[in-house]
Protein backbone atom coordinates (compact mmCIF):
# COMPACT_ATOMS: atom_id res chain seq x y z
CA UNK A 1 0.00 0.00 0.00
CA UNK A 2 1.25 3.51 -0.82
CA UNK A 3 2.09 5.54 2.30
CA UNK A 4 -0.43 8.27 2.98
CA UNK A 5 2.13 11.06 2.73
CA UNK A 6 2.83 10.10 -0.88
CA UNK A 7 -0.79 9.93 -1.93
CA UNK A 8 -1.65 11.95 -5.02
CA UNK A 9 -3.67 15.12 -4.52
CA UNK A 10 -6.54 13.67 -6.50
CA UNK A 11 -6.71 10.57 -4.28
CA UNK A 12 -6.85 12.73 -1.16
CA UNK A 13 -9.53 15.01 -2.60
CA UNK A 14 -11.67 12.00 -3.55
CA UNK A 15 -11.20 10.50 -0.06
CA UNK A 16 -12.24 13.76 1.61
CA UNK A 17 -15.29 14.04 -0.62
CA UNK A 18 -16.17 10.46 0.31
CA UNK A 19 -16.20 11.46 4.00
CA UNK A 20 -12.62 11.02 5.20
CA UNK A 21 -12.43 14.62 6.36
CA UNK A 22 -9.22 14.25 8.36
CA UNK A 23 -7.20 13.59 5.22
CA UNK A 24 -7.70 17.19 4.18
CA UNK A 25 -4.92 17.99 6.67
CA UNK A 26 -2.49 16.27 4.30
CA UNK A 27 -3.28 18.74 1.54
CA UNK A 28 -2.95 21.66 3.93
CA UNK A 29 0.36 20.33 5.20
CA UNK A 30 1.64 19.79 1.68
CA UNK A 31 0.93 23.25 0.29
CA UNK A 32 0.57 25.72 3.16
CA UNK A 33 4.19 26.97 3.27
CA UNK A 34 4.67 27.16 -0.48
CA UNK A 35 1.60 29.32 -0.89
CA UNK A 36 2.23 31.31 2.28
CA UNK A 37 5.35 32.65 0.58
CA UNK A 38 3.33 33.75 -2.44
CA UNK A 39 0.70 35.35 -0.16
CA UNK A 40 3.35 37.05 1.99
CA UNK A 41 4.93 38.71 -1.02
CA UNK A 42 1.53 39.67 -2.40
CA UNK A 43 0.24 41.12 0.86
CA UNK A 44 3.47 42.44 2.34
CA UNK A 45 2.93 40.73 5.68
CA UNK A 46 3.59 37.21 6.95
CA UNK A 47 0.68 37.47 9.41
CA UNK A 48 -1.76 38.51 6.70
CA UNK A 49 -0.42 35.69 4.54
CA UNK A 50 -1.09 33.14 7.27
CA UNK A 51 -4.67 34.33 7.61
CA UNK A 52 -5.15 34.34 3.84
CA UNK A 53 -3.81 30.81 3.43
CA UNK A 54 -6.01 29.57 6.27
CA UNK A 55 -9.12 31.20 4.81
CA UNK A 56 -8.33 29.88 1.35
CA UNK A 57 -8.00 26.31 2.63
CA UNK A 58 -11.29 26.56 4.54
CA UNK A 59 -12.99 28.02 1.48
CA UNK A 60 -11.47 25.34 -0.74
CA UNK A 61 -12.85 22.67 1.60
CA UNK A 62 -16.30 24.24 1.41
CA UNK A 63 -16.18 24.21 -2.37
CA UNK A 64 -14.28 20.96 -2.81
CA UNK A 65 -17.13 19.31 -4.70
CA UNK A 66 -16.70 22.03 -7.34
CA UNK A 67 -13.06 21.09 -7.98
CA UNK A 68 -13.65 19.63 -11.43
CA UNK A 69 -10.32 17.86 -11.71
CA UNK A 70 -9.19 16.60 -8.27
CA UNK A 71 -5.76 15.77 -9.71
CA UNK A 72 -5.27 19.49 -10.33
CA UNK A 73 -6.33 20.51 -6.83
CA UNK A 74 -3.36 22.77 -6.27
CA UNK A 75 -3.96 24.90 -9.38
CA UNK A 76 -7.60 25.28 -8.36
CA UNK A 77 -6.60 26.10 -4.77
CA UNK A 78 -4.14 28.69 -6.02
CA UNK A 79 -6.95 30.59 -7.75
CA UNK A 80 -8.95 30.68 -4.50
CA UNK A 81 -5.94 32.02 -2.60
CA UNK A 82 -5.22 34.49 -5.38
CA UNK A 83 -8.77 35.90 -5.17
CA UNK A 84 -8.41 36.16 -1.41
CA UNK A 85 -5.12 38.06 -1.75
CA UNK A 86 -6.51 40.43 -4.37
CA UNK A 87 -9.58 41.11 -2.21
CA UNK A 88 -7.39 41.71 0.83
CA UNK A 89 -5.28 44.25 -1.03
CA UNK A 90 -8.39 46.08 -2.24
CA UNK A 91 -9.73 46.24 1.32
CA UNK A 92 -6.43 47.17 2.87
CA UNK A 93 -4.88 49.35 0.23
CA UNK A 94 -3.55 51.93 2.63
CA UNK A 95 -1.63 49.46 4.76
CA UNK A 96 1.35 49.15 2.42
CA UNK A 97 3.46 50.39 5.26
CA UNK A 98 7.01 49.99 6.32
CA UNK A 99 5.86 47.69 9.09
CA UNK A 100 4.22 45.48 6.51
CA UNK A 101 7.41 45.13 4.53
CA UNK A 102 9.39 44.54 7.68
CA UNK A 103 7.02 41.76 8.58
CA UNK A 104 8.26 39.88 5.54
CA UNK A 105 11.82 40.94 4.99
CA UNK A 106 13.38 42.15 8.21
CA UNK A 107 14.29 38.86 9.78
CA UNK A 108 17.01 37.81 7.41
CA UNK A 109 19.83 40.14 8.12
CA UNK A 110 22.34 37.38 8.57
CA UNK A 111 22.96 36.41 4.96
CA UNK A 112 24.22 39.67 3.52
CA UNK A 113 24.33 42.31 6.17
CA UNK A 114 22.31 45.43 6.75
CA UNK A 115 22.68 46.66 3.18
CA UNK A 116 21.07 43.55 1.72
CA UNK A 117 18.32 43.68 4.32
CA UNK A 118 17.68 47.33 3.49
CA UNK A 119 17.60 46.56 -0.22
CA UNK A 120 15.14 43.74 0.36
CA UNK A 121 12.91 45.92 2.46
CA UNK A 122 12.98 48.64 -0.17
CA UNK A 123 12.11 46.15 -2.91
CA UNK A 124 9.26 44.67 -0.85
CA UNK A 125 7.84 48.14 -0.32
CA UNK A 126 8.24 48.94 -4.01
CA UNK A 127 6.43 45.69 -4.89
CA UNK A 128 3.47 46.88 -2.84
CA UNK A 129 3.27 49.95 -5.05
CA UNK A 130 2.74 47.84 -8.17
CA UNK A 131 -0.74 46.93 -9.32
CA UNK A 132 -1.77 43.48 -8.01
CA UNK A 133 -1.50 42.07 -11.55
CA UNK A 134 2.03 43.40 -11.95
CA UNK A 135 3.05 42.29 -8.50
CA UNK A 136 1.66 38.83 -9.06
CA UNK A 137 3.59 38.16 -12.26
CA UNK A 138 6.77 39.45 -10.62
CA UNK A 139 6.26 37.23 -7.56
CA UNK A 140 5.45 34.14 -9.60
CA UNK A 141 8.47 34.57 -11.84
CA UNK A 142 11.14 35.95 -9.56
CA UNK A 143 10.11 34.58 -6.16
CA UNK A 144 8.45 31.30 -7.13
CA UNK A 145 10.72 30.76 -10.11
CA UNK A 146 8.00 29.88 -12.62
CA UNK A 147 8.50 30.41 -16.34
CA UNK A 148 6.23 32.71 -18.34
CA UNK A 149 4.68 29.60 -19.90
CA UNK A 150 3.87 28.11 -16.50
CA UNK A 151 2.43 31.38 -15.24
CA UNK A 152 0.31 31.75 -18.37
CA UNK A 153 -1.11 28.29 -17.84
CA UNK A 154 -1.83 28.92 -14.19
CA UNK A 155 -3.55 32.26 -14.80
CA UNK A 156 -5.19 31.28 -18.11
CA UNK A 157 -3.59 34.14 -19.98
CA UNK A 158 -1.01 34.65 -22.74
CA UNK A 159 2.77 34.97 -22.46
CA UNK A 160 2.89 38.32 -24.37
CA UNK A 161 0.35 39.88 -22.00
CA UNK A 162 2.33 38.63 -19.00
CA UNK A 163 5.53 40.06 -20.44
CA UNK A 164 3.84 43.42 -20.96
CA UNK A 165 2.75 43.43 -17.31
CA UNK A 166 6.18 42.40 -16.15
CA UNK A 167 8.03 44.98 -18.22
CA UNK A 168 5.82 47.73 -16.80
CA UNK A 169 6.59 46.36 -13.36
CA UNK A 170 10.35 46.54 -14.05
CA UNK A 171 10.07 50.21 -15.02
CA UNK A 172 7.95 51.05 -12.01
CA UNK A 173 10.33 49.26 -9.67
CA UNK A 174 13.28 51.08 -11.18
CA UNK A 175 11.51 54.37 -10.59
CA UNK A 176 10.64 53.42 -7.00
CA UNK A 177 14.13 52.16 -6.24
CA UNK A 178 16.21 54.77 -8.01
CA UNK A 179 17.95 55.60 -4.72
CA UNK A 180 18.81 51.95 -4.15
CA UNK A 181 20.06 50.78 -7.55
Amino acid at each position, binding site marked *: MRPKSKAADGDIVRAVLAGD*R*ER*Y*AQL*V*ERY*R*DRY*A*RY*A*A*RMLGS*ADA*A*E*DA*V*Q*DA*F*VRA*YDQLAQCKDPDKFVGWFFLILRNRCFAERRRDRTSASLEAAEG*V*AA*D*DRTDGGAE*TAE*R*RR*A*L*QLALLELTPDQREVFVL*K*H*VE*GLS*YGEIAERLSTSVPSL*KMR*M*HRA*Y*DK*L*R*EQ*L*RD*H*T
Partner: protein
Amino acid sequence: MSGHDFHPLVKQLLDGDITLADLPAELRAEGENALRLLAAVDRTDVSVPAVTWRVMAALERRRRRVLPWLLAPALAVAAALILWILPAKPATPAALVTVRFVLVAPEAREVSLAGTFNQWDAHATPLVRTGPTGVWTATLTLPAGQHQYAFVVDGVRWVPDPGAPAVDDGFGRRNSVLTL
Protein backbone atom coordinates in the same frame (compact mmCIF):
# COMPACT_ATOMS: atom_id res chain seq x y z
CA MET B 1 9.47 55.49 -22.74
CA SER B 2 10.42 57.74 -19.83
CA GLY B 3 13.94 58.41 -18.64
CA HIS B 4 13.44 55.89 -15.85
CA ASP B 5 12.45 52.96 -18.06
CA PHE B 6 14.83 50.08 -18.59
CA HIS B 7 16.10 49.55 -22.12
CA PRO B 8 14.13 46.72 -23.83
CA LEU B 9 17.29 44.60 -23.98
CA VAL B 10 17.77 45.04 -20.24
CA LYS B 11 14.20 43.83 -19.72
CA GLN B 12 15.11 40.74 -21.74
CA LEU B 13 18.09 40.32 -19.43
CA LEU B 14 15.80 40.48 -16.39
CA ASP B 15 13.49 37.96 -18.04
CA GLY B 16 16.45 35.61 -18.39
CA ASP B 17 16.21 35.56 -22.19
CA ILE B 18 19.76 36.93 -22.65
CA THR B 19 22.87 37.27 -20.50
CA LEU B 20 24.91 40.30 -19.50
CA ALA B 21 27.48 39.37 -22.15
CA ASP B 22 24.80 39.71 -24.84
CA LEU B 23 24.28 43.39 -24.03
CA PRO B 24 26.12 46.06 -26.00
CA ALA B 25 28.87 47.68 -23.93
CA GLU B 26 26.92 50.90 -23.37
CA LEU B 27 24.10 48.95 -21.68
CA ARG B 28 26.28 46.83 -19.38
CA ALA B 29 26.13 49.23 -16.44
CA GLU B 30 22.34 49.47 -16.70
CA GLY B 31 22.18 45.70 -16.97
CA GLU B 32 24.28 45.19 -13.86
CA ASN B 33 22.11 47.68 -12.03
CA ALA B 34 18.98 45.81 -13.05
CA LEU B 35 20.41 42.48 -11.92
CA ARG B 36 21.19 44.02 -8.52
CA LEU B 37 17.48 44.76 -8.24
CA LEU B 38 16.64 41.09 -8.84
CA ALA B 39 19.32 40.02 -6.38
CA ALA B 40 17.34 41.80 -3.66
CA VAL B 41 14.27 39.62 -4.26
CA ASP B 42 13.38 37.91 -1.01
CA ARG B 43 12.92 34.21 -1.71
CA THR B 44 13.07 33.06 1.89
CA ASP B 45 10.46 30.51 2.87
CA VAL B 46 7.48 31.50 4.94
CA SER B 47 6.60 28.78 7.39
CA VAL B 48 3.05 28.66 8.73
CA PRO B 49 2.84 25.35 10.64
CA ALA B 50 -0.18 26.48 12.68
CA VAL B 51 -2.31 26.71 9.55
CA THR B 52 -2.90 22.96 9.44
CA TRP B 53 -4.30 22.93 12.94
CA ARG B 54 -6.24 26.16 12.46
CA VAL B 55 -7.91 24.91 9.28
CA MET B 56 -8.83 21.56 10.77
CA ALA B 57 -10.07 23.26 13.97
CA ALA B 58 -12.24 25.58 11.89
CA LEU B 59 -13.76 22.61 10.08
CA GLU B 60 -14.26 20.79 13.38
CA ARG B 61 -15.97 23.79 14.98
CA ARG B 62 -18.35 23.95 12.06
CA ARG B 63 -19.13 20.25 12.34
CA ARG B 64 -19.86 20.64 16.04
CA ARG B 65 -22.33 23.41 15.31
CA VAL B 66 -24.23 21.04 13.00
CA LEU B 67 -23.99 17.94 15.17
CA PRO B 68 -26.16 19.04 18.13
CA TRP B 69 -29.12 19.51 15.75
CA LEU B 70 -28.64 16.03 14.41
CA LEU B 71 -28.30 14.59 17.90
CA ALA B 72 -31.07 16.61 19.51
CA PRO B 73 -33.84 13.95 19.25
CA ALA B 74 -31.53 11.24 20.63
CA LEU B 75 -30.38 13.49 23.47
CA ALA B 76 -33.97 14.35 24.35
CA VAL B 77 -34.77 10.66 24.70
CA ALA B 78 -31.62 10.09 26.78
CA ALA B 79 -32.46 13.03 29.05
CA ALA B 80 -35.95 11.69 29.62
CA LEU B 81 -34.56 8.27 30.52
CA ILE B 82 -32.04 9.75 32.95
CA LEU B 83 -34.76 11.79 34.67
CA TRP B 84 -36.88 8.70 34.98
CA ILE B 85 -34.07 6.49 36.31
CA LEU B 86 -32.46 8.95 38.75
CA PRO B 87 -34.01 9.30 42.19
CA ALA B 88 -35.60 12.69 42.86
CA LYS B 89 -32.72 14.32 44.64
CA PRO B 90 -31.74 17.98 44.30
CA ALA B 91 -28.53 18.38 42.30
CA THR B 92 -25.64 20.30 43.85
CA PRO B 93 -25.16 23.40 41.71
CA ALA B 94 -21.60 23.93 40.46
CA ALA B 95 -20.01 27.19 41.60
CA LEU B 96 -20.56 29.81 38.92
CA VAL B 97 -18.62 33.03 38.50
CA THR B 98 -19.57 36.03 36.40
CA VAL B 99 -16.66 37.39 34.37
CA ARG B 100 -16.34 40.40 32.11
CA PHE B 101 -14.04 40.06 29.11
CA VAL B 102 -12.66 43.27 27.63
CA LEU B 103 -10.59 43.93 24.52
CA VAL B 104 -9.59 47.31 23.15
CA ALA B 105 -9.65 47.01 19.36
CA PRO B 106 -10.61 50.32 17.71
CA GLU B 107 -10.09 49.02 14.17
CA ALA B 108 -12.07 45.80 14.59
CA ARG B 109 -15.35 45.30 12.80
CA GLU B 110 -16.35 42.40 15.04
CA VAL B 111 -14.84 40.60 18.00
CA SER B 112 -15.83 37.31 19.56
CA LEU B 113 -14.58 34.98 22.23
CA ALA B 114 -13.57 31.37 21.64
CA GLY B 115 -12.48 29.07 24.38
CA THR B 116 -12.81 25.83 26.26
CA PHE B 117 -16.17 27.05 27.57
CA ASN B 118 -17.74 27.24 24.09
CA GLN B 119 -15.80 24.46 22.30
CA TRP B 120 -13.61 27.09 20.61
CA ASP B 121 -16.51 28.22 18.50
CA ALA B 122 -15.43 31.58 17.07
CA HIS B 123 -19.05 32.59 16.45
CA ALA B 124 -20.70 31.51 19.68
CA THR B 125 -19.83 34.45 21.94
CA PRO B 126 -19.70 37.84 20.25
CA LEU B 127 -18.44 40.87 22.16
CA VAL B 128 -20.34 44.16 22.04
CA ARG B 129 -18.68 47.44 21.16
CA THR B 130 -19.38 49.66 24.13
CA GLY B 131 -18.42 53.07 22.81
CA PRO B 132 -16.59 55.07 20.19
CA THR B 133 -13.18 54.22 21.66
CA GLY B 134 -13.19 50.65 20.42
CA VAL B 135 -13.71 48.86 23.75
CA TRP B 136 -15.37 45.48 23.23
CA THR B 137 -16.91 43.57 26.13
CA ALA B 138 -18.80 40.39 26.95
CA THR B 139 -20.04 39.22 30.31
CA LEU B 140 -20.26 35.47 30.89
CA THR B 141 -21.15 33.24 33.78
CA LEU B 142 -18.70 30.35 33.88
CA PRO B 143 -18.17 27.37 36.15
CA ALA B 144 -15.30 27.69 38.61
CA GLY B 145 -12.06 26.19 37.35
CA GLN B 146 -9.55 26.90 34.67
CA HIS B 147 -10.56 28.08 31.20
CA GLN B 148 -8.49 28.83 28.12
CA TYR B 149 -9.59 31.31 25.49
CA ALA B 150 -8.65 33.83 22.81
CA PHE B 151 -10.36 36.76 21.15
CA VAL B 152 -11.24 36.38 17.47
CA VAL B 153 -11.02 39.69 15.64
CA ASP B 154 -12.96 40.10 12.38
CA GLY B 155 -13.54 36.37 12.25
CA VAL B 156 -9.98 35.49 11.32
CA ARG B 157 -7.37 36.89 13.67
CA TRP B 158 -6.92 35.01 16.96
CA VAL B 159 -5.59 37.34 19.64
CA PRO B 160 -4.64 36.38 23.21
CA ASP B 161 -6.00 38.57 25.99
CA PRO B 162 -3.33 41.20 26.72
CA GLY B 163 -4.55 41.36 30.32
CA ALA B 164 -4.27 37.66 31.14
CA PRO B 165 -1.52 35.06 31.40
CA ALA B 166 -1.10 32.86 28.36
CA VAL B 167 0.09 29.36 27.57
CA ASP B 168 1.40 27.79 24.39
CA ASP B 169 -1.38 25.83 22.71
CA GLY B 170 1.13 23.38 21.25
CA PHE B 171 0.55 24.66 17.73
CA GLY B 172 2.58 27.87 17.87
CA ARG B 173 -0.20 30.08 19.20
CA ARG B 174 -0.89 31.47 22.67
CA ASN B 175 -4.08 30.84 24.60
CA SER B 176 -5.07 33.07 27.49
CA VAL B 177 -5.76 31.38 30.80
CA LEU B 178 -8.47 32.33 33.26
CA THR B 179 -8.70 30.62 36.65
CA LEU B 180 -11.92 31.12 38.58
